[in-house]
């Protein structure tokens, strides 16, 4: 396999334009966590014309709800959750300047269209490899919606966090292209 690309945050339009579906990357910098309940609140805040707890412009959201950290640990297990549940909210956040999302599993057409339009990328981390991924998180701080527990928004500093580009701004979709390479003829589909 080709060596992964190093991605130092924040993501610029220039860097995003060079990313292609299938590229393996190692991400270093600040990212924010949000999953179902936090997304609902972010969009509700936007609807009400309120400020968000962190600036979306140029940022990456990681869809994750970690386990509680043991004493002395930075964070517990922290792998991605399934992304399609955020499909209802993501276009709204992309419109406001969000540049990347990390999750797992395919996205809806409206999210893919919004990514092309607003020049943003969707990346996947290995779902379920949560102990392994937690080792690449160097600091974690709850910055909003603490009462949501595992669903609170956390600011994370990550170092060489491994991910793979699924959707790029050129219309590439790794889930579609990768499967077709290995699919065999079946009477059932």
């Amino acid at each position, binding site marked *: 396999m080709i060596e992964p690309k190093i991605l130092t945050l924040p993501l610029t339009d220039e860097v995003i334009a060079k990313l292609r579906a299938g590229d393996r990357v190692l991400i270093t910098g600040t990212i924010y966590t949000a999953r179902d309940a936090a997304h609902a609140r972010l969009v509700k805040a936007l609807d009400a014309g309120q400020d968000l707890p962190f600036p979306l412009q140029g940022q990456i959201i990681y869809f994750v709800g970690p386990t509680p950290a043991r004493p002395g640990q930075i964070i517990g*297990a922290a792998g991605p959750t399934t992304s399609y549940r955020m499909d209802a909210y993501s276009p709204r956040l992309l419109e406001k300047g969000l540049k990347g999302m990390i999750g797992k599993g395919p996205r809806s057409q409206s999210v893919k269209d919004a990514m092309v339009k607003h020049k943003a990328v969707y990346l996947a981390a290995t779902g379920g490899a949560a102990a392994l991924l937690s080792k690449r998180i160097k600091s974690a701080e709850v910055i909003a919606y603490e009462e949501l527990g595992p669903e609170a928004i956390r600011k994370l500093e990550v170092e060489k966090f491994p991910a793979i580009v699924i959707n790029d701004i050129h219309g590439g979709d790794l889930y579609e292209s990768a499967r*077709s390479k290995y699919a065999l003829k079946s009477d059932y589909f």
Partner: protein
Amino acid sequence: MRTIKASEITEAVKKLCIEAAYFLNQEMMTAFKKAQESEESPISKAIFGELIENAEIAKTEMIPYCQDTGFAVFFIELGQGVRIEDGLLTDAINEGVRQGYKEGYLRNSICDPFTRKNTGDNTPAIIHLDLVEGDKIKIVFDAKGGGSENMSRVTMLKPSDGIEGIKRFVIQRCLEAGGNPCPPIVVGVGIGGTFETAAILAKKALLKPLEQENEEPVLAQLEQDLLTEINKTGHGAQGLGGRNFCLSVKVIRHPCHIASLPVAVNIDCHAHRHKETIL
């Protein structure tokens, strides 16, 4: 009559919850290694390596294998010669879950379906109870992840749909699930009974040992056929393309109504976590 204290059940449940989150069963490690060797896709091959490493980190550094430490599902076989002292069985199990998830630093993932407010202690557990002969209690614990549960389905086929209809439904479901349920997946299929029986049997099928061949030749064949066809989708590990999308298919059947052919497919992710004990 043998007496078992409710507190003994609580203690056993607590231990099962913690062990399931940190120590992946050997059968999964064996399956990962086998898939890693045979896999043609470089991405899927690398992912199998990551999963093996992840399981080792989980065990040695005490970080849960997956952040989704699951819905606490129990299959209890309660011997009719057992009398439970100092409390109710349900309360004892829920207390074990409460303590296990807290002391094990596991995630509380259960909430109200409308308000989405977290119950705060991963209860209530889902408990399936069977009364059996004897004076023991067998406790089987399944830490069921939400992502793969979301990809599961129940359907009521027509008797005329037959085995081909069953195959079509199960294979189509896995095809559509794709990368969502964290493949490599394990698939449990429940056939027959009523609407709810099929679903419970599908979950029970997931708990069978992976290498155990079905004792009924017709079901052993069905399991093999389903596995072959599901892997033809090419989804591979994580849906990123490859030959090893599904590691195992297990089927349980039950007599059904002359009008019906219920079928349930319960998908599990590679964090295939179940532990059991006998008191």
